[in-house]
């Protein structure tokens, strides 16, 4: 494995909580052991390697590769594309996050159907999902670059505002919103630190490690998944994959995180 490991975020954010309690958390201790064991390797690299193959391989009804995919910086430009999404794409007429955009290329360039790319967005430990490989490949190419999400197109402004409002919308059996868990600084659920995603500092720290390889599930998860699982914890129904709603929330977080250095897929609990 030639890439350096990018262990950040979750392990480094202990700061605000009770340090004593943190030290005793078996999960955190477990991750530290795991990290030692891995040395310089992050299993996300396997996803990246598979993703690169998939990117360059001819596939789909049109028997085309994704090498001409325009991720926002022109056809074929992968490096630096991730840190400039979500953004408005004129050809699609909407704001898209990186995952939505890659799938857009799979349908438009390779000829896959909408149903095909929606079939299995989130893989399992033994059965990875192709889009998770592709996303890992594309984001890793932005490692070390500054998050620089465009904020000037009216649709980008609109997506930010929608995302912010959605973030604060309380409903469901427990009256939760995203802000119930991510609206105050220095809070935690049990021993899990909760970033205050309304602040630049915490939004940056949270954003730069995603997508992430999670030790608890032994696989890479994308930001689409992260939002999906937080809505589950919010006791809401399920957000539709790649919907404007999900992409608006990602836009809100990405614009708040602007200026941070992207660290690449992190290793998380």
């Amino acid at each position, binding site marked *: 494995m030639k890439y350096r490991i990018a262990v950040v975020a979750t392990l480094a954010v202990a700061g605000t909580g009770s340090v004593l309690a943190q030290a005793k958390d078996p999960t955190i201790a477990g991750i530290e052991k795991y990290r030692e064991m891995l040395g310089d390797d992050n299993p996300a690299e396997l996803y990246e390697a598979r993703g690169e193959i998939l990117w360059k391989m001819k596939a789909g009804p049109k028997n085309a590769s994704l090498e001409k995919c325009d991720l926002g910086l022109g056809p074929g430009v992968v490096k630096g594309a991730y840190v400039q999404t979500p953004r408005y794409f004129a050809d699609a007429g909407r704001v898209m996050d990186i995952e939505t955009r890659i799938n857009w290329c799979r349908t438009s360039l390779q000829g896959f159907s909408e149903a095909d790319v929606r079939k299995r967005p989130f893989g399992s430990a033994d059965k990875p999902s192709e889009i998770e490989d592709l996303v890992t490949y594309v984001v890793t190419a932005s490692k070390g670059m500054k998050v620089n999400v465009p904020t000037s197109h009216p649709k980008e402004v609109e997506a930010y*505002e929608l995302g912010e409002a959605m973030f604060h919308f309380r409903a469901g059996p427990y009256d939760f919103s995203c802000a119930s868990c991510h609206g105050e600084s220095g809070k935690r659920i049990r021993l899990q630190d909760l970033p205050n995603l309304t602040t630049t500092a915490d939004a940056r720290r949270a954003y730069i490690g995603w997508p992430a390889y999670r030790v608890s599930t032994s696989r890479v998860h994308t930001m689409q998944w992260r939002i999906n699982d937080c809505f589950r914890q919010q006791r809401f129904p399920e957000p*539709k994959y790649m919907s404007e709603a999900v992409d608006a929330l990602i836009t809100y977080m990405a614009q708040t995180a602007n200026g941070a250095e992207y660290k690449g897929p992190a290793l998380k609990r």
Partner: protein
Amino acid sequence: MKTNITRLSVIAASTAGATALMLAGCASQGSQSQAFPNHASPAAMKQATLAFKRDFQAKGIAGIDRLTTDKLQDVCNRSANNPSPDIAAILEHEELDRIKYPADGKFLGNWKAGEKLAQSGTGMTWSDNPEKPVGGNCYNCHQLSKTEISFGTIGPSLLNYGKLRGNSPEIQKYTYSKIYNSKAYNACSAMPRFGHVGALNETQLKDLVALLLDPESPVNK
């Protein structure tokens, strides 16, 4: 009018002693103790409501009906969790009025069962088995005992809750009511309305009251 009497009894309890002053503080703090600020404009909130309707789908027990806000959620959403004091008072009265009290007039159950419930964080998500009982989620947000170090901090520490406030009928009733419907005392509280939404039943609520008030409970040890 039942509302006023219940509220009065809580306030009355607060004159009893120094510990109860904390209770009065909490009860009257009401809407001022805003859980989380939010800058979303009412127009953006409206767009959000539409986006939720458009872009979400039912899964497991989590139907899209969950996105239909009730009056209280609506006011909290539109006021950034900070309704004017008179609106907050009306909402709190309404929530208090909806509390159903035990027919036998007793509030104290079994603290051991309460501790188990407080530990459990399951329930109400689309991946939960609806056949299984819903947990209390209390440790997710509160410190409750010295022995459990894995506790959340979204809510205040409830360590020594009973030791500090005593075990009077008023305190018992307040504690039952607060867990049943947290919004009866704080319109836009971050805490769920466990009894009101039917997540916890009467027996479970009593067990939790015992967990907080029983002198033998780890909360007060």
